[in-house]
Every structure is written in C-alpha cells, then in structure tokens.
C-alpha cells in the first residue's frame, strides 16, 4: 500500500524527504538528437505531394480592405489554392474571432504585416510569385502605435464597441480594458510618508525571440480528417482553434507537436496552422508553411509596450507607507489582459497597508501581442523596483534591507487579493544579502542594481499516462510540448515515485489522440502540474503492482507496501516473501491480470507563487553610453529543483532575456507605422559575448501544493532584470533612467543632459 500524501498539509515534511533521483543532474534525454540534428523541428517534415504556402501581408498600418482579386494568382501555373478570411468559419466568442482575424484579416488590416491572403503552390518561389499577382485595394486609415497617444481623443479608433470591462468615463474607444486592485487607504498611507517619489516610466515592446520561426505542415483528406505537425507550446490548443476555424469536429483533427526551437510564451496561439489546414482542405494536398524571420517579427508576438506612473511613500527608516501604480499597456489591435497581470504583480513582493494599482489596455496598430514569459509582470515590477531603489538612494538606505523590511511573507495580504501561504521572498533576499556578490567592491563607472521579482505560476488541465513494460522499463506519455526540460523532469519524478533508475523511464510528448486534454505549456505549469499527475499516475500503477504481488503471495493487497521499486509484504507477513521488483511483476503481468499502466487526469491548482531576487553589476562607458554587464547573480525559489541544471538554465535564460529587454531590444516604428527592425540585426537580443556567466542560486522553500514541493521556475527569472539593470545603470551613470531600452544613445543623452 502506498502512503498517500495529503496535499496542502505537508509543507514542513516536504523539506525533509530524501530523494534518490530528484535533485540529480542526469544528461538531458533530448540532447543527442539535438546535437546530431536528428531532432525534428517544425519545418523538418515533408509529405508526398506537399505544397508550400506563403502569405500576402498588409503594407499598411491601418486600412480598410476594399477588394481582393486573386484571379491572376489562381490562374498561375503551380498555384493550387488561395484562401482569404472568407474561407474560415465565423467564431462565436470574441476572443477566438480575434485570433482568427489575426490569422487572416477580415475587412480591415490593423498593422504592418497583417495577413491578408495565403497561396499554396508547388514551391515557395511559385507561391511568392503568385502573391505579386494578387490585387488588394486598400482605403488607408490614420494609424497610431504609441500607447499614450492612442488614449487621446484625437487618436484614430481601431474597433468600435470592444470595451470588455467597466471602463471609467473619459477613456476613448481604444481603451479596451480597465482593472483595479489594492487595499487600504492610499491617501492616509501617503500622509504617513517622510518622502514620496513619483515617476513615469516607459518600456518598449519586445519579442520573445525564439530562434525557430513558426512552422507547420497540415493535411486534410477528402474524408474530412486532418493532421497537423507544428512547432507549438500547445497542440491541443492548435487542434481546438484550427478545427473550429475550418469547421471540423475536434476528434477529426490530430495534432502532433514537433520538437520546439523556443517559445517563451510566443507559441501559445495560432498563426499559420488554420491557414495551412484551410489550404490543404481546398487543394487536397499537404501544405507546409514556414515564416521568414521578418514575418516572425512583423506578425507574431511580441509583448506589450507600456507607460506607467508610479508613486511610493516611505518613512525615513525604510517602511513603505503606500504604493500606487498606473500601468497603461498596448498589445496591438485586439483586446488582451496583460495590463491586468501588470497591475496584479506590480507590488506583489511587498507587505503593504495601502496599495492601489489601476491598469488600462489600449488598442493600437501593432501586431496582436502574445504571452511572453511572466506576461505583464516585468514592466510593472520594473517601475516599482526603480522607485524603491530611488527612495533607498535618497534616504541612504541599503536596498536589500529595505526590501526585507517590507517583504511579503506567509500570511501577507497580497496587493492583488489572496493571502500568501509558504513563500520564499525573505529567504531569497537573505541569500542575496549574504552572497559574496553583494559585498564585492565596485570599480569606476560601475553600479550595482537589485530587484525583486514575482510570478503567480499556473497549474491547470493535465493528463498523464504511463505503461509498465514487460522488461521492467516505463513509458510515460505527457501532452505538453517540452520547452524547458519536462521530459527529463517527468521521467525523474516517475522514476523517483516508482523507485527505479532514471534511465529506465522514457517520457514522450504524445499527440492529441494519445491521452486526454492538456492546457498549453505556459504559466510555468508543466513541472508542477504534469509532475503532479505523473506522481499520481505512478501511484496508480504501484497500487496495481502491489495487488499483483499480493495475488502471487496469496495475501491481502493492503498488506503489501512499495519500497525502493519493489513490492514487499508488511504487517504479520513482513519477511515472509522476498521483495518482488517492478521488473519481476511486469514480466509476469500477462499471467496476473494483463498489462499494467497508470494514468491521472486533473485540473490542478496550488501551483505556488514564485519570487526571485537579482543582483547585477554594470559598467557604463561615460563617453558612449555603452553598458557592460560585469557580474550577475540570480536567487530564486524553486520549491524543489527536480533537475537543477534545467532550473539554473531557466533562471539564466530569464535573466538574459531581461537584460536584452533592459538594454537594447525594442520594436521601432516609423512615422508610417511600419516596423523598421524586423530582423535580428537591428532587433538586438544579447549575444553570448555580451554577457558574463549568470550565476544561479536555487532556494528550495517547498510548495505545499505539490507532492515534492515543486514550484514553477520558468518565468520569474525574466521579471527582476529590467529594474536590476536599470538601477545598476542609474548608479553607474549618476542619472536616473526611466525608459527602456537603455540603449547607448539614450544613456549618453541622459548623462549629457544631467551635466
């Protein structure tokens, strides 16, 4: 019999459990495939008779589509099918309709790069030649790409009637959402302050920057059944949306997730998949679509840009008396809730008596935003952490001491509503304070920045299935694309629970027909939720195996325990029979009742919030405004690190993406509303030589919601770098920076302006 953990009540014991597999660092199971080129990514599949499709995109930032004439393109040799928005099924919900309209513009184009027509032909060259024969008549409309300008009464209206929340009076039609959080009397709080700092900040839109462009292969036969192969973070999502958009039943579409070359939230929606499926439906041939890098930038992602006013009051000994933030986000032409997440996270690190956040989402003529690692949080927390740093500077207080004094802890009423359970912020701050990095001397033109970060973490719908093979090995099927090492961590948790070595388990990502539904790989949910379901599935299998042993031994099933990968008799039967291993039970399974498997399906919760603290030393060249990252250390609570290499990788990757966001990454629009830097040359993500080794310190404050104490670690790491780097630069340059990216021209102008 298995000792059932009572989830939610074992926080203290979790830290005591001794693990055999969990916490070790075995080689990654997908490593050999990836370094030898055997791994199959989105663009790697071909099919007999396959066509290639490309997309005609809007050259305008905002225009009415008056007419589309595809006749000449269709008449061209090698062209097999053409689709426009007319070829898709109108959707009931506004959210899905927006996603469809973003895949293929309906009536209006809302941004430079918006898809208008797709052509499937015998080659990419033929398809591209056909695009040139398509005549689209546009009626050009005024456009706006800036969040503050789009809120003005003079701004062009993108959609009428798309306000989906209670919008306060005085907001124009482009304001699609408004949210408010907080508690306490904000005015009273500010009245108690010895000092108040009020500042406005801006952050640029940044792209997730995954190296693998969107790519898919879709087929649909005359029997109405379809298949999609795709680079995605969620193939069930691709299935549901694509099936709905072309008007087929979910069961008739099977979607397989390819090996994925990065997503970071950007592959949690559809762009090409329904289009390829519709083209295949029309042509009767498999259709492959691969975005160019330019298309990725112009038409997928990015995250929101923001403009935020922040006001924080502090006593002279460092206690925050009140905090207020007013973030305004734009995420392109369709409503989204990223601003809400910004408002919720802005002050989440602090235990405050009075806090108020109000957020606005504003529609602009930019591509539809997609999730990007802790969506909404980095830019909101950047503004708050910058003001706290300035207060510390003005009061001559230690920035970590001040954060410790105000840190949220177990029992804190959070700024967004819930009361926190076991959380790791204080431990993380203490670790940063005690680390040699914090005491290291700084050279000339150098500055040190500190920032806290927070992310909720999600859980959600999850299915896992595992088979106990006759040779004593275990095959696990999960339904979430592996973007951060889940095949390793799931195998490790299965091995841990079953009491067998890691290399006896192989985990694969099944297609949509192999197991039950799974939410998208997002919200740092997979190690938590899929891990939880895997442990439960293993326990189901163990229960079955204990029963088999009991049957062989002729004793009661509940007199059998599972110890170190074997059934053992307990109670008065203890020692009566030698342990029966998993391999022995599996080998005889045909004789004892048939195949042995375990599965578990759950809509999980209890993900457990996550906090991190980043320390960075920067050096600013006073003559050029160039910032060099000299030293960087990440401290983050992982609950329990299943595979520490991957956990460190997540922390390092988040830090690096945040550094890029802080220093150089930005969507640059011209007066004409066109994106000017749709490529990695002028959209500058950091290259390896830009960075020092990012040191990662893992804290383990067990999450009571998970059998092993796991918290998601994928997103929190991108939250602190924006403010940490900005605070470091502000100290190094001797001038407070309040706009991202802090590109060299911007820093040099600030330095010269302060002279």
């Amino acid at each position, binding site marked *: 019999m298995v000792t059932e953990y009572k989830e939610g009540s074992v926080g203290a014991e979790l830290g005591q459990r001794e693990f055999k597999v969990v916490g070790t660092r075995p080689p990654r199971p997908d490593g050999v495939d990836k370094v030898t080129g055997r791994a199959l990514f989105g663009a790697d599949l071909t099919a007999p008779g396959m066509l290639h499709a490309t997309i005609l995109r809007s050259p305008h930032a905002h225009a009415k589509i008056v007419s589309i004439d595809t006749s000449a393109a269709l008449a061209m040799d090698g062209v097999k099918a053409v689709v426009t928005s007319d070829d898709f099924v109108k959707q009931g919900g506004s959210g899905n309709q927006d996603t469809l309209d973003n895949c293929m513009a309906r009536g209006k184009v809302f941004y430079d790069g918006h898809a208008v027509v797709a052509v499937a032909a015998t080659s990419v060259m033929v398809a591209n030649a056909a695009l040139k024969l398509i005549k689209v008549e546009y009626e050009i409309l005024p456009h706006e790409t800036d969040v503050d300008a789009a809120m003005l009464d003079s701004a062009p209206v993108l959609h009428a009637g798309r306000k989906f929340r209670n919008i306060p009076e005085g907001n124009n039609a482009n304001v699609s959402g408004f949210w408010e959080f907080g508690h306490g009397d904000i005015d009273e709080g500010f009245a108690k302050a010895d000092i108040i700092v009020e500042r406005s900040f801006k952050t640029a839109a940044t792209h997730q920057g995954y190296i693998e462009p969107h790519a898919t292969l879709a087929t649909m036969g005359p029997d109405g059944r379809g298949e999609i192969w795709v680079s995605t973070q969620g193939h069930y999502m691709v299935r549901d949306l694509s099936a709905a958009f072309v008007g087929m039943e979910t069961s008739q579409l099977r979607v397989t997730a390819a090996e994925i070359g990065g997503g970071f939230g950007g592959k949690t929606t559809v762009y090409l998949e329904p289009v390829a499926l519709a083209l295949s439906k029309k042509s009767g041939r498999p259709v492959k679509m691969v975005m160019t890098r330019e298309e990725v930038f112009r038409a997928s992602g990015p995250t929101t840009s923001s403009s935020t006013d922040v006001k924080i009051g502090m006593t002279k000994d460092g206690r925050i008396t009140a905090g207020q933030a007013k973030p305004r986000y734009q995420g392109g032409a369709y409503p989204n809730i990223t601003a809400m997440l910004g408002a919720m996270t802005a002050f989440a690190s602090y235990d405050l008596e009075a806090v108020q956040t109000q957020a606005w989402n504003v529609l602009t003529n930019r591509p539809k935003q997609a999730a990007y690692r802790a969506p909404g949080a980095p830019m909101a927390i950047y503004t708050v952490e910058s003001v706290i740093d300035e207060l510390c500077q003005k009061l001559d207080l230690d920035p970590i001491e001040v954060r410790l004094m105000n840190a949220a802890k177990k029992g804190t009423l959070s700024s967004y509503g819930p009361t926190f359970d076991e959380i790791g912020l204080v431990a993380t701050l203490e670790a940063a304070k005690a680390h040699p990095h914090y005491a290291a001397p700084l050279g000339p033109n150098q500055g040190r920045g500190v920032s806290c970060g927070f992310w909720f973490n999600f859980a959600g719908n999850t299915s896992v299935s595992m088979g106990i093979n006759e040779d004593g090995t275990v095959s696990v099927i999960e339904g979430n694309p592996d973007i951060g090492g889940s095949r390793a961590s799931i195998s490790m948790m299965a091995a841990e629970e079953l009491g067998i070595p890691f290399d006896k388990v192989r985990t694969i990502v099944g297609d949509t027909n192999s197991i039950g539904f799974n939410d998208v790989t997002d919200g740092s949910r997979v190690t938590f939720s899929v891990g939880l379901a895997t442990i439960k599935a293993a326990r189901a299998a163990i229960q079955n195996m204990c029963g088999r042993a009991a049957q062989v031994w002729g004793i009661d099933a509940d007199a059998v325990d599972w110890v170190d990968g074997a059934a053992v008799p307990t109670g008065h039967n203890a020692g009566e029979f030698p342990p029966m291993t998993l391999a022995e039970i599996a080998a005889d399974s045909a004789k004892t009742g048939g195949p042995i498997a375990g599965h578990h399906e759950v809509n999980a919760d209890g993900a457990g919030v996550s906090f991190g603290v980043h320390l960075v030393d920067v050096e600013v060249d006073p*003559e*050029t405004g160039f910032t060099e990252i000299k030293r960087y250390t990440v401290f983050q609570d992982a609950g329990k690190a299943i595979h520490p290499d991957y956990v460190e990788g997540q922390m390092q990757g988040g830090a690096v993406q945040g550094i890029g966001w802080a220093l150089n990454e930005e969507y640059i629009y011209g007066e004409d509303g066109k994106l000017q830097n749709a490529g990695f040359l002028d959209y*500058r993500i950091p290259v390896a030589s*830009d960075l020092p080794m990012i040191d990662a310190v893992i804290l383990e404050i067990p999450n009571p919601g998970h059998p092993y104490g796991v918290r998601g670690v994928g997103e929190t790491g991108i939250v602190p770098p924006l403010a940490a780097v900005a605070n470091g630069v502000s100290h190094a340059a001797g001038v407070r920076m309040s706009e991202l990216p802090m590109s060299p*021209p911007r820093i040099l102008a600030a330095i010269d302006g302060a002279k």
Partner: protein
Amino acid sequence: MRFESPDTIEQAVELLNTCDGISRLLAGGTDVLVQLRLALVEPDLIVDIKNIAGMRNITAEDGGFRIGAAVSGAEMGEHEGLVALWPGVVEAMELVGSTQVQGRATLAGNLCNASPAADSVPAMVVANAVARIVGPNGTRDCPVIDIPVGPSKTSLAKGEVITSIYLPARPDNSGDAYLRFIPRTEMDIAVSSAGVNLTIDSAGVVTQAQVSLGAVAPTVLVVDDAAKAIIGTKLDDDAISALQAACSAACNPIDDKRGTVEFRTKTAGVMAKRAALIAYSRAGGSK
C-alpha cells in the same frame, strides 16, 4: 537566374559586360545572399569569382601585401605577416559579422557593398590601400577611397571587377587601428567608426597621420584636420582633444534606428580618440 563560376578573370569580365539585366558578383556572398533572401534584388546573373586563379591568395609584393578578392577575413587573421604589417586593417575586417561569416566574408566584397558603415573601409583608407581592377578596357589601379561613391554605389564601370586589394609597405614605427561603436559586442553594424594610421619618430612625435570616419556620412570621411591635430605631438591630452573635436566637426550623419545624429557625432570622435591611442601604442609610442 544564371549562375556562372568562370575559371578566368577575362571570362568573368565578359559575362558581366554582356549581361543586359541585373548582375551580381559573388565572392564570399555574405552580402549578396542576404540581399537575395530578403528579396532586395533578383539578379539575372551571378558570377562567382572564387575559382579564378589568384583570387584566394595573399601575396607579398614590394614590402606590402596583395590580398585576392576572395580571401576571407579568417584567412587574413591567420596571416602573420599581414597582421604584423597592418593590424588595424585586419582587425577591421575581422569585426565583420560572426565567426561563421568570417570564413567567407572578403575585404573586396566589404568595399564593393559600399555601405557607409563598412568596417574595413575606414581602415583601408588610412592605410592608403589600392584596389586593382580588371575590366573590358584592361587593368587599372584605384585608391580604395575612390571606390564607394554613396550608399550601395561604387565608381566601378560595367564589367569591372576588383581582383585584389594592395596594402603598401610602411615606414618603421608605424601603427594603425580601427574601432567602431555598436550597441553590443559583436554581430552588428557600426553606428560610428574610426580608422587611424600614424608614424612616429624616435622621440615619440607623430610625423605623419591619417584619420578616417565611417558611418557618419554617405561615404568614408578622411579628416585632415584630425590628422593635423596630432602631427607634431606626442598625443598629449590637448592633441587628442583637438583630434576628437575635429572628427566630431567633420561628421555629417543621419538619424536612424541605429543612432541619432548627436550620438553618432559624439561617438565618432570618441572612437577616433581611442583608435589613435591604440595606433600610437602599436607604433611603439608610450604615454
């Protein structure tokens, strides 16, 4: 699109001279292939010159070096004699692109692409480099400074091909250097840049100098006032400040996504100042 890979320069010239449409010469291809992939150009003819004898050689000549038009940046960086003689030119070429691009990118190609921000050109200009050109009317030599005439435009006539670049001999106690400003540490395009070549006497006094700037005008600028500011000095602070000011005064840049006029003007002077100090040190001067 026709792709030709002739064995002789005469065939290459003939192909280019008789092509009625758009033609492109392919050496390393690190610019041409990017232009093709971005659909910036759809040539009717591409002529690959890598198979022509001599194109991939670095040859000693009259105390200097002749660098074939298809010699890669990586090959230049591995040539000890060349690195010893013109370190500034080699370091400029080695800044182009990434390690992978270095295996292909060429000095002549960087010149003929005629980007105002080309890294090797300011360094070649101060080195008094000379391009050898073969065309329908025979062979001629032309100073590198006279090849680019504006963004993406060269003075080369139809059918003309640069076959090599000659870096001349130089006096003892000479040094050159090239620096550029980019927002990151590699794989980027100069926002501003400067090349400096100078010679000093036994007392450490600069006897001759040339200063050039990149990315701050439609073509590379030669800044005589900056050179004059350091000739006759030991690169003392006043001389350096005068050089920096002269460089900034000479700038005529544009505002674009890579940098503002103000930023380019200021950093061009900073790059020139720092390059001059490196060149001075390479010449054997000590400060």
